[in-house]
Each structure stands twice: as C-alpha cells, then as structure tokens.
C-alpha cells in the first residue's frame, strides 16, 4: 500500500487518498525544489519587479531619507537632450553598438574558419583545438590585462613594429585603434569557444557529401559554400545570436584596456550603468538604464531573427 502510494505520487500526482478519505499533498517534491526556488525567487524573480520599481524613484543610495517617486522621469531623462544622463547614455549605447559591429563578424567568421581547418583527420588536430580554446578558460581581467600590456605605447607590439622599421602607433590613444585593440583581445580570448561549437556541428556533416561533391569536381571553396555553410546555417544563426548578446555585455575589456577612453569613446553601456548606479549612486536612473538595455537587446535579437532566422525556412 505504501509502495503503491509512492509509485502513484511519483508518476501521477502528489495528492493521494488516505484512509480517512482526505487528500494529502505530498510535500517531498517541494523539498527538492525549494532550496533552488528560494534563491531563484530572491535573486531572479523579485529583482525583476524591484528593478522596475526602483527605476520609478529618484533613488539615491547614499541618502536613504530622500527618495521621492518620480514616475517615468528617469526614462524621460534618457530621451531629453538637456538631462544629465542623455549624452553619456547614448554615447555608451553607440559605443556598445560600435563594438558589436567590430567584434561579431570576426568572432563568427574566424571561429568558423578555424573549425573548418580543424575538421580534418590531421594528426595532432586535438592539440591545435586545445591551444585555440585555451584563452577562453582565463578570466576576462587576465585577458584584458594582457591586451592592455601588449597595446601600450611602449608595449611589445610597438616595439616589434619599430623593430622592423615602421612607425609605432598609439593603439590605445587614437580612435579607432582602441576598438581594434579591444576587438583583437576579445577575439583572442573567446573565438575558441565559437570554434568548438562549430567544430561539433561540422563533425555531424556526413563525409559522403564532400566525397560526392569532389567527384563532381567541386573544389574546397565550392564545397565550403555549397555544403558546409548551408548545413551549418542554424548553428551560425545560434552563434551570431549569442555573440551579439555577449558583445552587448561588453564591460571588462574597455574597463581594463582603455578605461573607457580616450575621452569616454570606448565606454560601454554596462560601464555607464555601473558609473551611474555605483559611483554617483543614482540607482533609480541606473535601473532605468538597465531596463532600456534589456529593451534594446530584445530589439537587436528580434532584428537578428528577422535577418537571419527567416532564411532558415527557405
């Protein structure tokens, strides 16, 4: 009887009839779920509403006595060119967009090309794969410190350039080179991730397709464009999507490599949000920027779905 009860409660329902005819609720499943649920509710559920709530206040973290309700003022400020926030906010939005344009194409294309190079029966290819992926396991701070050190005015890059008789460059001081430094550092740090995902997908493509194509006289480039790219389209779409989101979350690289400079021209949106919220303690305004960030990101992903997602159905 006890066994039947348990089997029932596991496979069908948590309410089982008892001798008295009352239905008792089996609490056990809730004990399984509860530990995670507490944290989920406190740090993902509640803050979703609390963040929107805070964004409706003039919420000065350093002054608990004066936090008046201001309605949509924090959002209106972001669209009012005379407000304190307007110029800084939109500059950081444009900067983040600039980084997305700089970084997503090379991260996707180089990631794919490296995967294609590795997708052969070459002896030792796993060693190369391990090397290409290795920087991903480092902290963003370490990767960025390396970028900062290498691209210094007196850094190894300029030393090498002077060494071969060319003019050294102010990589971190003269736009647009800071974007080049940040992008190259990011490619070095994370392109291996994309390569690993592409490689896993490439290995699912049947060898016979390529054999048939090469019998028909298609060269490797034709095979790549005619077989690999079409078959990988869903994976390419997936990588582009997560890459846009990852690049939109740019924070550590400019913070460490350029400090947001020169003249705040590489300050990302998250850097701006951090400054607004945790340096100036204008948390209502910071929370409003976070909401705007989420909306912009949703629009971006929707655009991406329109541009690339649609072709998948053809």
């Amino acid at each position, binding site marked *: 009887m006890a066994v039947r009860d348990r089997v029932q409660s596991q496979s069908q329902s948590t309410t089982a009839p008892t001798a008295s005819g009352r239905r008792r609720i089996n609490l056990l499943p809730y004990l399984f779920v509860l530990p995670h649920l507490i944290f989920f509710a406190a740090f993902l559920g509640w*803050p979703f509403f609390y963040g929107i709530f805070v964004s409706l206040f003039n919420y000065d973290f350093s002054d608990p006595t004066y936090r008046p309700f201001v309605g949509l003022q924090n959002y209106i400020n972001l669209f009012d060119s005379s407000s304190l926030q307007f110029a800084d906010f939109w500059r950081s939005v444009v900067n983040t967009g600039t980084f997305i344009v700089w970084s997503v194409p090379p991260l996707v294309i180089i990631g794919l090309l490296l995967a294609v190079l590795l997708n052969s029966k070459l002896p030792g290819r796993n060693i190369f794969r391990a090397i290409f992926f290795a920087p991903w396991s480092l902290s963003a701070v370490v990767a960025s410190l390396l970028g900062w050190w290498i691209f210094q005015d007196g850094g190894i890059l300029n030393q090498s350039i002077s*060494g071969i008789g060319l003019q050294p460059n102010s990589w971190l001081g003269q736009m647009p080179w800071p974007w080049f430094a940040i992008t190259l550092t990011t490619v070095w740090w994370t392109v291996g991730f994309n390569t690993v995902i592409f490689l896993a997908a490439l290995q699912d493509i049947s060898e016979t397709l390529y054999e048939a194509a090469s019998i028909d006289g298609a060269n*490797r480039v034709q095979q790549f464009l005619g077989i690999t790219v079409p078959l990988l389209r869903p994976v390419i779409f997936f990588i582009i999507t997560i890459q846009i989101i990852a690049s939109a979350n740019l924070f550590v690289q400019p913070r460490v490599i350029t400090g947001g400079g020169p003249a705040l021209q590489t300050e990302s949106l998250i850097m701006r949000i951090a400054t607004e919220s945790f340096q100036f303690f204008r948390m209502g305004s910071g929370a409003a920027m976070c909401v705007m960030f989420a909306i912009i990101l949703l629009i971006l992903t929707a655009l991406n779905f329109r541009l690339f997602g649609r072709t998948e159905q053809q």
Partner: protein
Amino acid sequence: MASIAKPAVQARSGMSNGKLVGRIVLYIVLGLVAIFFLLPLFWMLVTSLKPGDEWLQANWLPKNPTFDNFTRLFNNPSAPMFNWFVNSIIISGIATFLTLTLDALAGYAYSRLNFPGRKILFALMIGTLTLPGIVFLVPNYLTVNTLGWLNTYQGVIAPGLAGVFGVFFLRQFFQSLPKELEEAALIDGGTIWTNFWHIALPLSRPALATLGIITFLASWNDYLWPWLVLNDPTKFTLPVGLASLQGSFTFDYGLIMAGAVIASLPVIILYLLLQRYIIQSVAMTGLKG
C-alpha cells in the same frame, strides 16, 4: 582561404605528393594561428620573470630571470595576493558545490516528480532566460545590501545560485535516463530519496562534472559582481584584486603580470588536466562565458 583550396586542387589531380604539400600548408597555417594564441601567454610569463629595467625591452627571453616580481607581490601589504587566492578558492568552491546540490535536487524534481505548480514554476524559469543579467544588477545589489551581505562571501555567491541553466541542464539529463529503473526500485521498497541518491545521481556523474567545471570556471573568472559587492581589499577575489593592481601599480608591469600568472595558473593547470572534458562541456552546453 587559399590554404584550404590548395589541398583540394592537389587532391583532385590524385597525386599523393600533392596531398602531402596540402598537409604541410595546413600545418603551417595552424602553427601560425597557434603561435598567435600562445604568444600573449608566453609574453605574460616572460614579463613576470623580468627585472624592472627589462620590461620595456622587446627581448623574448629574460636576460636576468628573477622571481622578484612574485616576492614583491606576495610581500605587499596593499595587495594581499594570498588572501585573494584563498577567497577565490573558497567562493568558487562553495558556489560550485551549492550549485550542483541545488540544481540536482531541483532538476530531479522537475524531471521526475509531479506536483502542483510544477509547470508554472518551470515556465517562469524559462522566462528569465530571455532577460539579460544586467537588469538584475541594481536590485540585487540593493537586496544584498539589505541583507547586510556586502563585503561577504555569501553576498558574492548567493545571486549566482538563482541561475536556472544548471536546473535545465540536469533536468534534461535526468529525462534521458530510463524511468523503469527507478520505478522498479520503488516497488522493491525504495523511496524517492533513495532513487535520487542511489540511482539518478550516480548515473549523472558526467553531467554533474560538466556543470561543475563550467560553474567553477565562471565563478573563478567572474569580475563585475564580486567587484561591486567587495570593497575591502582583503576580501577581494583574484580578478577583482588583479584589476585593482592595475590601478595602484600602473607602471609596475612585472608585478601586474606576476599577478596575472598567479591568477591563471590554477585554471591553466585545470585546463591541461581536463582539456578534453572542458571542451566537450562547452560543445555540449553552448554556454558563452
């Protein structure tokens, strides 16, 4: 591109010599790319072993190799490197252990147990996946502050435990296990708990290892949240401390690179040992760092 096309052209003409040439070209290309990936790491190590007057010289091997940067780093009271190391280990260790525990329990319930509210809760969790993590930044900071958890381990760890990825991931894995085993065990007098503990968990070791590795790496390398929560330098994690070195010892490149070496050493060792596992984990989960 040309390097890919080349072996094909050769292969078509059916010459084994051509295939060999193609292979050599491929090795050269891969080798150059490998150098691009390894050189910065090598430069980090070289800089950390150079005395101060050599930092801004382009020699790729230190003329007078020294551990001076490391000893200066560990003897510097304003940069308590040892504390940072210990803090990182404690925080990443606890975060990984608790994530595995909570997510395995919850994942098992969402996979195997039926209870009122299950579908709604699960849908809510999927919903939060569509939101960028940044929207939780300000409110979670206020919550942690209200709890009095600023500058504490739990303040750094707790918000990460809310993550839903691990719950999904383990739930999917439990789904793939045959149900019959557990049903038979129940009839033999087992309980839901013994099913979870003695059947589902041991069968899920690969999935738990995957989630554990990814959680540990993410926690070890995290910067933004610990940087916000921790203000006291003795409480810093390695990435937070390292970034602070850059502010206080800007031109002491050898010292900063020594710090970077110390912070990277554990993950590089972990990577050398578990490289295959880590790459598989990433290919399996598709989780961007």
